[in-house]
């Protein structure tokens, strides 16, 4: 039965001391596209997890077509016609598309489910324009194709209302356009859509109505055509978010990092990075744009010593550091703010002061012979906490008790405290709230002024344009071109991200 109306009233949810949702109410009619806008941590994902049955609400009711419903698990929500396409795909990498779709698909036969599912997938592909090979393994697919699998999963399970959580965060601009076309088609067929995003442009372009969340509460709701970006931004943050960051124009200094014809193998693929060459100068930020999965991770690992290149060379201030270990590159002055900060950048169970020297513990500042000088380590940690405004209950708190933003500040502070020659920052503001994001970006710009060379890898084009002097695009392991950000256009970058070489472009 189609969902003509959805009503969530007074939804509240707390995790320990944190109130993620507070008295949230929203309404949706059949065939409508509702945008759910809010910055990171506003409570959008929690609210949708409650709607999808992944979490129970502490208070509040949900009504579908006027009748109250209670979801104890996604199975209930799916049975009632609600589907969810997650931001981080819930796909099993080693399995085929058909096997992933068959998982949790109530009508899949017990014996040989993959066959029947493959047939249905072909059907759906035709109807909605979602082309995907049922026999391919997930790890072989691009992010856009994986997302199609998620959408097919939801539709096959009978989703009438589809929740999409930050769907374009992993897509190139062109793939995002293709997705919007699919969504519009679904909307005309009567499906309702809830579109979660923090990107104002997209919300305004695809949604009929918008609900803005801020700190767990509804900050405002209206039809999309009645709103503009500034207003939405204000509702989202409570103040005008125009980052007051100014990038001073500086003369780039001598070459610090020189990468020549670098080839790096991936975990499964033969070559994740193919013959990439570029240079980064002092007082310069080079941005590497491109959707994740095009070789950025392998490139960063090769430069920071976590992965051996198969060919080519890496030089730091003229010295050959190709294939050097992480220990050596760190000692030579390459600092690294890793993506997935909790997984790679800190040791969650150790204390704040112990994490403040994770890579620097061998330096003479903090050690004498075999022994660590905890006195100087604590002093160093105290300085970091003060200089970077890190909110930590004490130096002896396990670092996992800190918020994401504070953890990132600690990592950044730790890495730049040695005035490194080169800082490699991978997705440094991912998942951080506006305040922390602004802070980190300001720090990176100041570092650039002080003379460090920076290599910034980011999927956020806004960030790249704000911070970087020049931008390079990685597609399928190849460098598609390097252009000064002052002269580049979104269209140009978008084309490069989709694998199309620009008409002009210089690799300096």
């Amino acid at each position, binding site marked *: 039965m189609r969902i003509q109306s959805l009503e969530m009233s007074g939804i509240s949810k707390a995790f320990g001391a944190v109130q993620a949702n507070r008295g949230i109410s929203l309404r949706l009619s059949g065939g409508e596209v509702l945008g759910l806008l809010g910055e990171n941590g506003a409570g959008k994902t929690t609210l949708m997890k409650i709607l999808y049955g*992944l*979490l129970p609400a502490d208070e509040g009711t949900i009504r579908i077509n006027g009748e109250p419903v209670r979801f104890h*698990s*996604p*199975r209930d929500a*799916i049975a009632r016609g609600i589907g*969810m396409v*997650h931001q981080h*795909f*819930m*796909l*099993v*990498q*080693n*399995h085929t598309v058909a*096997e*992933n779709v*068959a*998982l*949790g698909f109530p009508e*899949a*036969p*017990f*014996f*040989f*489910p*993959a066959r029947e599912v493959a047939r249905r997938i072909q059907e759906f592909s035709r109807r909605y324009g979602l082309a995907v090979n049922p026999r391919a393994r997930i790890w072989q697919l691009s992010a856009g194709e994986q997302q199609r699998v998620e959408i097919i*999963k939801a539709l096959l399970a009978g989703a009438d209302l589809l929740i999409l959580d930050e769907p374009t965060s992993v897509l190139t601009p062109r793939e995002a356009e293709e997705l919007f076309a699919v969504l519009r088609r679904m909307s005309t067929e009567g499906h309702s859509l809830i579109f979660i995003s923090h990107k104002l442009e997209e919300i305004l372009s695809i949604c009929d109505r918008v609900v803005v969340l801020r700190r767990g509460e509804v900050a405002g709701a209206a039809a999309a055509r009645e709103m503009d970006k500034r207003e939405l931004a204000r509702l989202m943050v409570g103040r005008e978010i125009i980052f007051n960051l100014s990038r001073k124009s500086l003369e780039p200094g001598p070459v610090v990092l020189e990468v020549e014809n670098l080839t790096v193998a991936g975990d*499964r693929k033969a070559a994740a990075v193919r013959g990439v060459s570029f240079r980064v100068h002092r007082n310069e930020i080079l941005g590497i744009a491109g959707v994740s999965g095009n070789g950025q991770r392998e490139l960063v690992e090769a430069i920071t010593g976590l992965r051996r290149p198969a060919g080519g060379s890496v030089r730091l201030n003229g010295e050959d550091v190709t294939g050097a270990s992480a220990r050596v590159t760190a000692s030579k002055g390459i600092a690294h703010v890793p993506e997935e900060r909790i997984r790679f950048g800190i040791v969650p169970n150790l204390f704040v002061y112990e994490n403040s020297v994770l890579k620097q513990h061998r330096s003479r500042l903090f050690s004498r012979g075999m022994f660590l000088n905890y006195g100087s380590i604590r002093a160093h940690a105290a300085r970091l906490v003060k200089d970077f405004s890190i909110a930590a209950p004490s130096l002896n708190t396990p670092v996992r008790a800190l918020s994401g933003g504070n953890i990132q500040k600690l990592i950044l502070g730790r890495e730049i405290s040695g005035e490194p020659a080169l800082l490699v920052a991978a997705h440094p503001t991912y998942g951080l709230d506006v305040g922390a994001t602004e802070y980190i970006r300001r720090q990176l710009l100041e570092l650039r002024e002080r003379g460090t060379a920076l290599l910034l890898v980011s999927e956020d084009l806004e960030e790249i344009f704000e911070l970087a002097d020049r931008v390079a695009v990685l597609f399928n392991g190849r460098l598609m071109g390097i252009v000064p950000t002052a002269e580049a256009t979104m269209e140009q970058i978008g084309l490069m991200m989709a694998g199309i070489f620009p008409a002009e472009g210089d690799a300096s």
Partner: protein
Amino acid sequence: MEKILLSVAVRTLVAGTPLLLGTLGEILAERSGVLNLGVEGMMAIGAVSGYLAALGSGSPWLGLAVALAAGMAISVIHAFVSVTLKANQVVSGLALTMLGLGAASLLGKPFIGRPLPVKLEAVRIPVLADIPYLGPVLFSRDAVFYISVLLGLVFAFLLARTRWGIEVRSVGENPAAADAAGVSVSGRRYLCTLAGGALAGLAGGYLSLVYSNSWMEGMTGGRGWIVIALTIFALWRPGRAFLGAYLFGVIFVLQYLLQPLGIPPNLLGMMPYLATLAVLVAGGLRADHRQLAAPTALGEPFSK
């Protein structure tokens, strides 16, 4: 000469059957993401309880059933600690092994060396058993042998070609994805761990009831650990478990065969353990291959 070969073949199958049962069970548990290092303890409990039940009742079948149940009962503890309490699975398994070996020793003490007056008879499969050479070896074995082979084939099919198999494998690869699809992660993990425990218990029962027809201290002799190694060797596929199980069956049999050659029995005694190391080293040479075959979420507790 051929008589010797046939006898060796038969004894290999008998020696390999408990290994096959144990490996199949461990593959199931690990595929669902639970690392069960308590197999040795479960086997021991299965061996002693099967023996005692058979001794008391006079029925080997009851003995086997009790062995199976005992193994399953103990694995409930491991499932609870690993899945519900989300504790360290390695230490839990070790504790279970100590517990199982100790308890088995306690229970079996008064009966050491007492032979069982009952035996599991061989079941002849008509027509097939008359095939020259192969017939008497393959088709005139005890019922548990047939069951183990059947189980291997059934598990292989279940895991690869049914929806249940996809669900179990997904739970072991990406439990968050399975959970989001409405599959009960703890439910599947409990089921597979219990099945693993049941098969480990049955394997132990087979050891005391068929392989050696009595109870002795340390009867399991590290077979539980060998099973865990064989699971890796089989790349977590039931089909490949046959290869490892019977290969080690041969090794156990060779221990006795080579004795008359004058090789010190202790050197022969080392064979299964050195072979296990060799098997693991060989697997490690293609480490990337093995890494890709291991269930991604193996040994990691799942929280929403």
